[in-house]
């Protein structure tokens, strides 16, 4: 490619720097404040991790964190199995149907408020008591869509002749899947699972509507929402920082495992 004039390159770099500043300054401020001794944005009174300590003694936050981990882990597990099978099924099908594509794509684009009230109406019509289990089955809906999208992207470049070679060498279809296909697509499966886990532990609206009334099924995002409505507190800053660290770690891992999950 021809070299761009220096002035053009400089203005593009400046533009990018401004956009990154816009994207990262708000988050950065939050993280910085979580370490502020005084806890207020008005003045820096010294470095401290005491707000993190405060989190550990807050029973509501701890139980919400526990609930979130349960929801995230169980819904990810179910979604990973179902989503991977779905991806294999779609990609080995001869004919691709538009209706099928739309059905599998829908959970990713349907506004969450709509899915949330639909599930709420559905569960209450069935008179199903709501709690963590209803959050879990609801989260599987969009999680499986994301897992299957990631695995399908991998399968699109998958060389099916290696699976055929395994069959040719005498392996059964199941052995071929276990010994050849699965090991080869495993990075994508794990990447999809990590993505699903991140989405699940961050998800608020659907959990909010399908959690039922009890305090026992409050998840971390629900807890954070309640706290934010109350106002800006140093505890939220610390909690927010921790939640972001978990998400960013899971996603960086996911990206490492499978280039192109988050960004191609």
């Amino acid at each position, binding site marked *: 490619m021809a070299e761009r004039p220096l002035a053009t390159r400089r203005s593009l770099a400046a533009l990018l720097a401004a956009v990154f500043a816009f*994207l990262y300054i708000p988050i950065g401020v939050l993280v910085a404040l979580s370490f502020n001794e005084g806890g207020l944005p008005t003045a820096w009174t010294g470095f401290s991790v005491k707000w993190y300590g405060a989190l550990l003694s807050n029973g509501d936050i701890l139980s919400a964190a526990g609930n979130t981990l349960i929801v995230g882990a169980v819904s990810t597990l179910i979604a990973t199995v179902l989503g991977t099978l779905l991806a294999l*099924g779609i990609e080995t099908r*001869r004919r691709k149907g538009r209706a099928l594509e739309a059905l599998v794509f829908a959970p990713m684009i349907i506004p969450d408020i709509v899915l949330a009230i639909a599930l709420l109406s559905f569960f209450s019509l069935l008179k199903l008591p709501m709690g963590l289990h209803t959050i879990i089955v609801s989260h599987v809906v969009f999680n499986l869509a994301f897992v299957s999208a990631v695995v399908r992207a991998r399968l699109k470049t998958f060389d099916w002749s290696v699976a055929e070679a395994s069959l040719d060498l005498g392996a059964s279809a199941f052995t071929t899947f276990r010994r050849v296909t699965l090991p080869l697509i495993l990075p994508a499966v794990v990447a999809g699972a990590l993505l699903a886990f991140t989405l699940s532990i961050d998800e608020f609206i659907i959990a909010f509507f399908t959690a039922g009334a009890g305090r026992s099924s409050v998840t971390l995002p629900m807890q954070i929402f309640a706290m934010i409505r109350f106002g800006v507190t140093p505890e939220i800053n610390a909690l927010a920082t921790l939640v972001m660290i978990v998400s960013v770690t899971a996603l960086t891992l996911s990206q490492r495992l499978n280039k192109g999950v988050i960004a*191609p």
Partner: protein
Amino acid sequence: MNASNARSTALMAPALAWLTALMVIPCGLILALGFFRRGIYGGIEYSFTLENFALLLDPLYAGIFLTSARIAGTATLIAVVIGYAAAYAIAAAPRHRQPLLLFLAVLPFWSNYLIRTYAWIVLLNREGLITQFLRMMGYEGEPPSLLYTEGAVIVGLVYNYLPFVILACYAPLSRLNPELAEASRDLGASAFTTFRRVILPMTLHGIAAGAVFVFVLSIGNFITPALLGGGRFQMIGNLIYAQFLTANDWPFGAALSMALIAIMLGLLTLQAMAAEKGAGERREVLDG
């Protein structure tokens, strides 16, 4: 061939059953709910009516739709302009640096939405960082009211969805054969003409995809107006929320959801048609 298709179907069955039970049927239920009456003490009375959809045209609710569309439209426009420019800058960076830049641009998108929105409360509230900054610069008047304004909602929406626009615009920009721009220059076009006649038309579908996504998610948004608009700026998402959790008018809430889905499907269809048309033909100057 039949055996293989049977196996594919068996593989898909559990996931499709799950989606049917927990997405298709509930959404169908919502559609049906929209045609029932609200019971006297809340709840649902199972008799057919079009009242709920008629109510959508009531000036009060139509006004909320228009406000939502205006806020979502403004946020979309800003996000698309900034996002396209950023995507262009990333695509113009050295090849080996692009994956990292893109990763950094998209990373915030995957952190918690509530937290990203909350970060703006920290910046914008009366004693927030922006006020502090102004004081530091010598400002002594009343703290500016930044939070709980339409502007705050728009900033929040742009902030939350900008990474997606960057991603959507980057894809076609990075696939663009740089020789096409060179060919245009070689044939006598200026840099601006090259952008207008070659680069822009060839990346329009990325812009459209990003714009539709931002608009749909913004118009149905519930968290951002609730937290940054302080409830003063009701948008469709908040209205739906209220019907289900406070007003207890589920049929009307269902009708509102259907309207939201209709807007989304309409825009997606338009976008798909535009993409197809773009691929199919482009009238050239020769036709007169």
